[in-house]
């Protein structure tokens, strides 16, 4: 993915660390000790836009200093270094401001997919604006009718000369209303089996033919959007990968998605995404309710801490295993599964510790006052980024090699696949 420079050209990791540290301390302001990215917080839209604008500035700051795209080849504006360098940079960034809100899904899976499958021309054109913070990308993968079956996309692209005409709807895109580009999986052939008739396209989210609507979550958060594509025209030059070979792209795409902040393309201070709402959240609730000396609460604190530590240890083991080839790419599902299950458990623990404050609270209750609304959103840890059910399918079938689940959509033209109890097939 990231072509290494010749060995002798690569800066030593420790010397890179010193350089990064000097620059960060001199040029980056102090940030919140812990982040709350992707936690479905309810914030006013103007605040959200201000945060995104600030993240773009920070991304540009990193770019200008030579710290953006650390693992991206220099030919596309990156630094051509290694995952170890990126890790060091993330370590040094702890405690400082960062562009964390615009790293996912722009850097992974979108940038990662572009680097894997983009033509030379596409990489030259798309990658530098990403590294400069000028282009924020979204993944247009899920559909309202689709659930876990992303390859069952109904969004259709029909060729018209040098262009494609797209119609359909995509959903669960984070912040599409303030983003710039979308990477979209669409059906280009209904007469072949499900996985064989897909193609990937890129297009600007503010193009004519794209309507973006925010989705309100039950807690009032509007982090997600749904897009409606109506006769959207996309030049063939913005097709990513081969026609009807979109599932080859899609498979890597989902692998990159499961990497999350472990991707070497992502610049986020070490521990930021990991820390929030897990163990630290439990500890905050215990402190704000004055219960840290209750042995029962300590039992739960111990469990939450155990889950968080083991989750991170497992993530490291899986990442190293995949990097070394000791584990298959599909093993990323193991860490994803544990992340989801432990996440809902830690959330439940926080709610239990909150006690009556979880039912009703005032601002004076501090962190404990968030436990109730957070608990309502508990399952998001097992839904977002691929459900735990899909992870269990992947682990049992692709890692353990057990027989594939029977599907009624394999080996038949997608047009004929049942999509509802009435036998309706569009």
């Amino acid at each position: 993915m990231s072509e290494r420079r010749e060995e002798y050209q690569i800066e030593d990791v420790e010397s890179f660390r010193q350089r990064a540290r000097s620059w960060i301390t001199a040029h980056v302001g102090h940030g919140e000790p812990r982040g709350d990215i992707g936690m479905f917080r309810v914030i006013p839209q103007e605040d959200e836009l201000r945060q995104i604008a600030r993240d773009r500035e920070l991304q540009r700051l990193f770019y200008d200093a030579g710290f953006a795209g650390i693992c991206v080849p220099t030919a596309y504006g990156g630094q051509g270094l290694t995952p170890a360098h990126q890790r060091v940079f993330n370590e040094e960034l702890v405690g400082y401001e960062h562009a964390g809100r615009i790293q996912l899904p722009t850097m992974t899976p979108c940038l990662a997919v572009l680097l894997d499958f983009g033509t030379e021309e596409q990489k030259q054109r798309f990658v530098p604006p990403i590294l400069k913070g000028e282009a924020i990308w979204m993944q247009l993968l899920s559909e309202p009718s689709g659930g876990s079956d992303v390859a069952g996309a109904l969004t259709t692209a029909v060729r018209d000369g040098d262009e494609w005409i797209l119609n359909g709807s995509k959903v669960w895109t984070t912040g599409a209303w303030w983003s710039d580009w979308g990477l979209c999986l669409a059906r280009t052939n209904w007469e072949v089996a499900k996985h064989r008739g897909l193609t990937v396209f890129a297009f600007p989210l503010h193009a004519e033919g794209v309507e973006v609507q925010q989705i309100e979550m039950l807690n009032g958060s509007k982090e997600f959007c749904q897009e409606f594509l109506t006769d959207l025209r996309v030049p063939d030059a913005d097709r990513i990968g081969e026609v009807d070979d979109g599932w080859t792209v899609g498979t890597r795409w989902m692998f990159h998605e499961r990497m999350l902040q472990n991707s070497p393309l992502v610049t986020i201070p070490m521990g930021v995404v990991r820390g929030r709402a897990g163990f630290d959240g439990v500890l905050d609730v215990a402190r704000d309710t004055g219960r840290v000396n209750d042995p029962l609460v300590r039992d739960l604190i111990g469990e939450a801490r155990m889950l968080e530590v083991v989750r991170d240890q497992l993530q490291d083991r899986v990442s190293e295993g995949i990097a070394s080839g000791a584990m298959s790419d599909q093993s990323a599902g193991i860490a994803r599964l544990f992340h989801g299950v432990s996440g809902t458990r830690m959330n439940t623990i926080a709610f239990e510790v909150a006690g009556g404050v979880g039912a009703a609270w005032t601002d004076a209750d501090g962190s404990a006052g968030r436990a109730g609304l957070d608990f309502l959103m508990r399952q998001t840890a097992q839904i977002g980024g691929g459900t735990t059910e899909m992870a269990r399918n992947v682990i049992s079938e692709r890692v353990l090699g057990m027989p594939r689940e029977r599907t009624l959509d394999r080996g038949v033209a997608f047009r004929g696949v049942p999509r509802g109890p009435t036998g309706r097939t569009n």
Partner: protein
Amino acid sequence: MLLELSSDQQFFRETTAKFLAEFAPVDELRRRRDDPVGFDRDYWKRGAELGWTSLLVSEANGGGSISGRGVVDITLIANEFGRAAAPGPLATTNVVAAALNDAGTHLPVLEGLIAGTSIASWCDGFADDAFAMRVDGDEIVLDGVKRPVESGSEADHFLVTGRTGDDGLRVTQVLVPRSTAGVTVEPMQTVDLTRRFSSVRFDGVRVPVSAVIGEVGDGSDRAQRLLQLALVMLNAESVGAMQAAFDMTVEWAFDRYSFGRPLASYQELKHRFADMKSWLEAAHATSDVAAAAVQDRSPDAGELVSVAKAFIGQYGAELVHDCVQMHGGIGVTFEHDLHLFVRRVTLNRALLGTPMDHRQRIATLVLETPARASTT
């Protein structure tokens, strides 16, 4: 809910179900998300006419049950409240009504509660809060904060329990008019869409001895019974909400296709539905048995309501969240109905003692029961 209802009970239940379907449909609930009250007084008054507020009151005092077993009857209403995620101060008002009926004091107030023209809030919780109450001549003086108090912002009266006497061990209950000097009501935030809670502060509040429910120092047994009654209603309501979430999700599993097959055909999901079904039926069972024990003032009523609260709190939450999981992303959107039931189950799980609190209480009751203590 009971497997078999009498025809009177069935009619009574259906009347409330139809009323709620008409006057508290899901879109109406969504509209009330920012409403500081959460329900209309007129809605409440009409519900009272259907019997929502009279079941725990004797006929002599203007109430009356359907089956002669008012505690069982009110679980039917609470269950429908859960199935509809309905607004209204059902538990809190009925607890106060039961208290006044039991003590035989403040009958004019009780009359207003039964008619639905007046609202009263029961201010107590699962555990004793730090709250000071003392008798000063012919007055009772109150100092402290009670929270969360359901519908505190709408209440005309507050039922407040405290400890009096030289030893501080006598339990006294007073009914404090909202207008009393020194009473401050501060709204709280909550997980529910239509239920509202307040923090109620009593700053040197003075009420005459005539405000005492029953007599000074006679409130200990009554306070325990009120907690049992409240738990019975919360449990029945949660079971109704569990049932609604479960039914909705079973239907979804049949209708939703993935990889060319309905979700209901996937064995792993089927088995989770089987687990949910077992939790759901168990929740019905334990809720009903506890209600009957409270109705009968059985000696094990305290343990049985705690068993039910601990079980329904824990497994109810697991059930509604697995329903969310089955729905995927759509299940956590505001537009979908599922969260209405997730909220109600979540609310009731945290009110009046969490599962952990009640497990501790069960252990205490079991270990202190002489019969069991002697078996080893």
